[in-house]
C-alpha cells in the first residue's frame, strides 16, 4: 500500500551495495579523513575487513580516482569541515537552480517594470513603474482570457475528479483482469500532449473524424454540422473533453492510492457495527481518501491553469478568442507581439495568482489531513 509505506518504521539503514564501503575506504584513506568521516554506513560484516580486492569496474575506477586525486586537493579537502563538504556537493545543484529558475524569475520581475521589447535590442530600455501591471490588470482581453482559463480549470477538474474517483473505486474492487483494465485506462496519460492534440484534431474533423461520425450515428445530426473546433459554443467543450480523456487516469491513480491506504480493519469494524455500504462510503471511504483527492485537484489545477500545448494544437485559441486561455495570451504577447515588459508583468501576475491560490489550498489540505 503506497500510502502507508511512508509511515512504517523502516529497517536499520544498511548499504544496499556491500562493495560500496570497500570502494570508499581507499579513497578516504588517501584523503586522510578521520574514521568518523569515513564511515557513512554502519559497520557490516563485509566492511569490517579492509580489503583491497577489486571485483568490478566501479571498484577499479574508484581506486584510480582516489590515486589520481592530486595531493593539493587532498590537503584542501582534508581541511574542510563536514558543513563545507556538504555545501561542496550541493553547490552545483544550487548554482543550476539559480541559473535556470531563480535568476529568470528575478529578471522577469525587473523586465516587468520596463518597456523592454526583445525584438528591439537597440532601443532604450525605460522604467515604466507599475505601468505594465496597470495595463495588464485593466486589459479586458486579459480578463477574458482569465475567465476562459477559469472555465476550463473548473470543468476539467470537476469532470476528472468525479470520473477519476469513480474509476478508482471500481478498480479498487478486486475482479478478474483488473490489472489489465488499470493498464488500459492509464494509456492516455502516457501519451504526449502533442500527439493527443493532433489526433484529437483529426477525430473532431467534421468530414472525416470518428468523433463526428459517432455523434452523428447516435443523434442523427449530419457530420458536417458537428463542428467541435470551429463552433464558438462547442470548442471550449472540445478541449475539456480531450483534457478529461487524457488526465482522468492520473486522478484515478492518486485516488486509488488513497483508497488502498485505508486499512481493512476500519471497514471490518464498520461491518461489525452493521454500517451499510452507503454509510461506509460516506463515513470512511470519502473522508479518508479526501486528502488524496485534494492533492489530485491541486496538481491538476496548477497544470490546467498553465495549459498551453493542448489548446494550441486543437484550436490555437480560436474560433476568434473563444478558447484563448491565459497562457496562449501570454505567449502571443511575449513572442508574437514582442511586448516583453508587459508580458513579464502578466507572467508575474499569473505566478502570484497560482502561487497564492496553491498556498491557500495547501493550508486547507493540511487541515483536512489533520482531522
Amino acid at each position, binding site marked *: 500500500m503506497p500510502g502507508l509505506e511512508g509511515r512504517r518504521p523502516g529497517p536499520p539503514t544498511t548499504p544496499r551495495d556491500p562493495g560500496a564501503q570497500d570502494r570508499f575506504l581507499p579513497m578516504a584513506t588517501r584523503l586522510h579523513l578521520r574514521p568518523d568521516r569515513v564511515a557513512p554506513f554502519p559497520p557490516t560484516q563485509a566492511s569490517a575487513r579492509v580489503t583491497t580486492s577489486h571485483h568490478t569496474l566501479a571498484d577499479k575506477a574508484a581506486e584510480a580516482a582516489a590515486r589520481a586525486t592530486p*595531493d593539493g586537493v587532498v590537503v584542501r579537502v582534508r581541511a574542510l569541515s563536514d558543513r563545507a563538504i556538504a555545501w561542496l556537493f550541493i553547490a552545483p545543484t544550487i548554482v543550476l537552480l539559480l541559473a535556470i529558475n531563480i535568476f529568470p524569475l528575478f529578471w522577469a520581475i525587473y523586465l516587468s517594470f520596463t518597456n523592454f521589447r526583445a525584438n528591439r535590442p537597440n532601443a532604450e530600455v525605460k522604467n515604466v513603474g507599475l505601468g505594465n501591471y496597470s495595463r495588464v490588470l485593466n486589459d479586458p482581453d486579459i480578463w477574458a482570457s482569465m475567465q476562459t482559463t477559469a472555465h476550463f480549470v473548473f470543468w476539467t477538474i470537476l469532470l476528472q475528479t468525479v470520473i477519476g474517483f469513480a474509476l478508482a473505486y471500481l478498480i479498487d474492487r478486486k475482479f478478474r483482469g483488473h490489472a489489465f483494465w488499470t493498464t488500459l485506462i492509464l494509456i492516455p496519460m502516457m501519451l504526449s500532449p502533442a500527439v493527443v492534440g493532433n489526433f484529437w484534431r483529426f477525430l473532431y474533423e467534421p468530414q472525416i473524424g470518428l468523433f463526428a461520425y459517432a455523434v452523428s450515428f447516435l443523434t442523427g445530426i449530419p457530420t458536417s454540422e458537428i463542428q467541435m*473546433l*470551429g463552433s464558438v459554443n462547442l470548442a471550449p467543450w472540445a478541449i475539456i473533453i480531450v483534457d478529461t480523456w487524457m488526465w482522468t487516469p492520473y486522478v484515478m491513480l492518486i485516488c486509488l492510492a488513497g483508497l488502498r491506504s485505508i486499512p481493512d480493519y476500519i471497514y471490518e469494524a464498520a461491518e461489525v457495527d452493521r454500517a451499510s455500504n452507503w454509510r461506509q462510503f460516506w463515513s470512511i471511504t470519502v473522508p479518508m481518501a479526501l486528502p488524496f483527492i485534494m492533492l489530485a485537484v491541486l496538481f491538476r489545477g496548477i497544470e490546467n491553469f498553465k495549459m498551453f500545448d493542448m489548446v494550441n494544437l486543437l484550436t490555437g485559441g480560436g474560433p476568434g478568442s473563444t478558447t484563448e486561455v491565459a497562457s496562449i495570451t501570454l505567449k502571443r504577447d511575449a513572442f508574437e507581439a514582442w511586448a516583453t515588459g508587459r508580458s513579464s508583468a502578466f507572467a508575474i501576475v499569473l505566478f502570484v495568482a497560482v502561487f497564492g491560490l496553491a498556498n491557500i489550498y495547501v493550508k486547507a489540505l493540511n487541515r483536512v489531513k489533520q482531522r
Partner: protein
Amino acid sequence: MLKKWIPLLGATAVCALMSAPQAAKAEQLTLCWAAWDPANALVELSKDFTTKTGIDMKFEFVPWTSYADRFLNELNSRGKLCDLIIGDSQWVGGAAENGHYVKLNDFFAKEGIKMDDFVPATVVGYSEWPKNTPNYWALPAMGDVVGWTYRKDWFQRPEIQKEFKAKYGWDLDAPKTYDQLKQIAEFFQKRQIDGKTVYGASIYTERGSEGITMGVTNVLYDWGFMYDNPKKPYDMQGYVNSPDAVKGLEFYKSLYDCCTPPGASNVYMVESADAFKSGQVAMQMNFAFTWPGLYKDEKVGGDRIGFFPNPAEKYHFAQLGGQGISVVSYSDKRDAALQYIKWFAQPQVQAKWWQLGGYSCLKAVVDAPDFKTSQPYAPAFLESMAIVKDFWAEPSYAELLQAMQKRVHDYVVAGKGTAKEALDGLEKDWTEIFKEDGKI
C-alpha cells in the same frame, strides 16, 4: 604526478584532432527559410553555386507556422545560425532598424546589381526600408502573391454550365469580380459531383500566425480599405474603418459563412491546398507558390486546374507575399554570403530558378516573350504581381499583425460583434501601437 595527467592530455589531444578537420573544412553557408516547395527548388539551384565556388550550402528550413517565431527569435538574440536569410517581406522594417540585416547599397553598386532590373513592387515590398526610398536590405528572391485556383474540369462540364447560366445568367468561367466569385461559390456549395459532396471555396481563416489577415486584406483592398491617409502617414481614422472597408469585411464573413467546407475555421496555406487537392472545393485562395505543386498533382492538376488573379471589386489589388534574401549582420561569413547574393542575382540563375519552381522577380525573366507560355500559371502570376499591396512593414509589424488577427478572427469566424466594431477596434489598436512607437 605528470604521468597521471598524461591520459587526460592524450584524450584532449585526440578530441582536438577530431575537431580540427571541421575548422579546416571548406567554407559553408547556412541559409534560413521556410519549409515549403520553393525551398526544395532552392536546394537544387544552390548546387550550381557550390560547384562554382566550392562553398557548401546548408539549409535551415522551418514550417510556416513557426517560421516567424523561430527566425525572429534567432535575429533578436543576434544568433549566428543563419548567414543568409530569406525573411518575410514585413520583417524588413524591424530588421533594418534593429541592425539584423546588412545594408546592401554599397554592395549592389560595387557589383553592378541594379534594383531597376527587378519588378518594382518586389523591390518596394522586399528590399526597401523606409519604403519608397533607395535603401536596400535584401535582394528580391521569391515573388509571391495571393491568387486563386479553380476546378477547370468542373467548370467545363456542360450540365454544370447549363445549370449555372440558367441560375445566374452568365457563362460559368473564372470570376472577374468578387460578386461573381461568391455566386460561383454558392453554386458549388454542397453540390454532388461524382458522388461526393463538394463546397464552394477555401479561404484563409487561420488564427495563430498571419492567415486570416492575408485573406481578409486580399479582399478589403478591393473594397477600398487603406492602411492610412496617403497624405498624412499613420492617420488611420476613416481609412482602416471606412464604410467601404466595413462592407469588404462583411463580404469576407458572408463568404466564410456561406461557401466554405465544414470545419474550415483555421485554414491557411497547407489546409487550403489540401482542401483543393482532396477535391473538396471548387475554388481556392492561396499564394502563388502553391501553384506549381498543384499543377503537378495527379488528381487535380494538369487540365483539371485553372488559375486566376484576385478578382476586382471597386478597386483591383492583391495581397503581396514573397520574400527577399538578406545577409545577416551577425554572420562571420559575410563575404561568402554576399558572394551567394551576387551569384543569385545573375539572369541565367534567375531563369533556372523560375524553371525549378521558384518565382523570379527579375524583369529579364518575367518580361521574356515566352514567359507567359512557359507555365499555365504564369499569366495569372504576372497579372497578380502588377496589382500587389502589402501589410505594414513597420518595426512593430508583429504587434500590428496580432491586433488584426484577433479583431478579424473574432468577427469573421467567431461572429463576435459587427464588422464596424472590428475595424474601429483595429484602428484603435493600431493607433495605440504607433503612439507607443512615437510615430504619432
